[in-house]
């Protein structure tokens, strides 16, 4: 079993990076405390047997629709929601350095 994680500022920084979030220093202690408490409540799950269980008749098969093109969404209405557009395209800040 993997040891129980210690929620410290390093782990929080890593999770925030993966989540594309910035947790300001003044909020970090509170966030860490909440994460610690919630994951401690999750720990009961680690005692469960590891064998897979038959999900029975609730495991309904996913039925996908036919792979056929349908009329697209109205482009003007879609683009109207974008923070910045130009020439019918989404505009973002620079992605590649150089």
């Amino acid at each position, binding site marked *: 079993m993997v040891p129980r994680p210690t929620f410290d500022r390093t782990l929080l920084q890593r999770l925030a990076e993966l989540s594309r979030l910035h947790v300001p220093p003044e909020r970090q202690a509170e966030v860490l405390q909440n994460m610690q408490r919630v994951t401690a409540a999750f720990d009961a799950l680690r005692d469960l047997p590891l064998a897979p*269980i038959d999900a029975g008749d609730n495991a309904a098969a*996913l*039925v996908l629709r036919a792979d056929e093109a349908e009329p697209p969404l109205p482009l003007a209405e879609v683009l109207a929601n974008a923070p910045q557009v130009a020439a019918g395209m989404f505009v973002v800040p620079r992605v590649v350095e150089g």
Partner: protein
Amino acid sequence: MSHPWQLPARELAGLVRNRQLSARELVRACLDRIDRLDPGLHAFLDHRGARALADADAVDAACARGDDPGPLAGVPIGWKDNLVLRGETTSAGSRMLESFRSPYSATCLQRLAAAGGVLLGRTNMDEFGMGSSTENSAYGPTRNPWNSDLVPGGSSGGSAAAVAADLCPLAVGSDTGGSVRQPAALCGVVGLKPTYGRVSRHGLIAYASSLDCVGVLGHSVDDLGLWLQVCAGGDAADPTSTSAPVPDFTPAARESLKGLRIGVPWELNGPGLDDEVAAATEAARSTLRDLGAELVECTLPHTAYAVPTYYLIAMAEAASNLARYDGVRYGARRTGAKRCDEMTTASRSKGFGDEVQLRILLGTFALSIGYQDEYYGQAARARDLLRADFRHAFAKCDLLLSPTSPVPAFPLGSRIDDPLAMYLCDALTVPASLAGLPALSQPCGFTAAGLPIGLQWMAPPLREDLLLQVAGVFERHTDHHRRRALP
């Protein structure tokens, strides 16, 4: 005639179809009531005003021509702010989507409008459905119509308060872990979460996709059946919707419960219940026995794992679903960043509230290398065990019964700083969500302070017909649902 806002949806639709009441008059009455009462409740984020009246006029014109506008003719319907309607703002209770206008409509809203329903306005909610009190709305909390110092429950708290205050006879909600049933209980109305897949989720802003269900709140079991009749059925736009046949949800009234076996899982009917909630559900069980039902004790042995299982799965799915809010195609953008990834991080940190950010961080943790099998993998196993528990229980019982919420409505601000205390509000509703089962909450009593208490029914998959039939019998033999919060 009573005030129109006091009547059930089915009766209102009949009056409109027979031209004894105009749809305009009905919608106007609801809009006036919203203008008068909602400033003190904040159940609605906005209403469609003139556009709703124009839709009502179209219903009246159809009636005048002799056409049938449909089973919901002229009925004003509120909808939770996480269901999109073309051309209207939909924010999911978040600053992130404050100015988002949808280019398409949710299937269930399309079906309601096609059945003659008049879409009245958007109701308040916890941001992206994450909360049990509606205090996590970026636009301020909703207050409980029975006592404005208390929460209405959540996350469909706006829809529950709107119905409880008679601002509209029906309001659509969504239920991921109890978000229709728990506010229904705390506001003294009836709330239905159908079987997962019974109602299309196309156009429902995703929170936790393996759990999200569209549901409804109203004043009577019959009105919920009317809503389900209109909204149920497969939808090519939602591959998780079921094409199972849709039965008639308004069968001839059943008078007795003779021959019905109702299971009472002890894990959901004892530990941790408020005394008045326990007493009201015991009184309900006694009424059901008097009506001829056989009540049998049963067990759902893995219930203790339900809350952590639910939150782990929901947070993991939320972390994935909410990754789409990157400040590029829609949603808030923080300007001034020099690089795209900086812009995304800044936009998300500004657009999401504290609880949403906490759940994304925890969901990311649950899916991260080294911990995924220990946490998310174990939660998936626990979910299978819970499903098996229900299957075994339904081999011996027709329906299962419990309180809906362990506590009645609680004061605003009393749990908001303690995520665990808030999560435990869902302890009785998350098991049915994890198993994808249909479940319903209906009023079964009041506390000494006059706060409503809810009774929860759970049925085997796709047995909403039985759920509605039996809850309907209980409703006809009790009068809890008749009491109103506001004159």
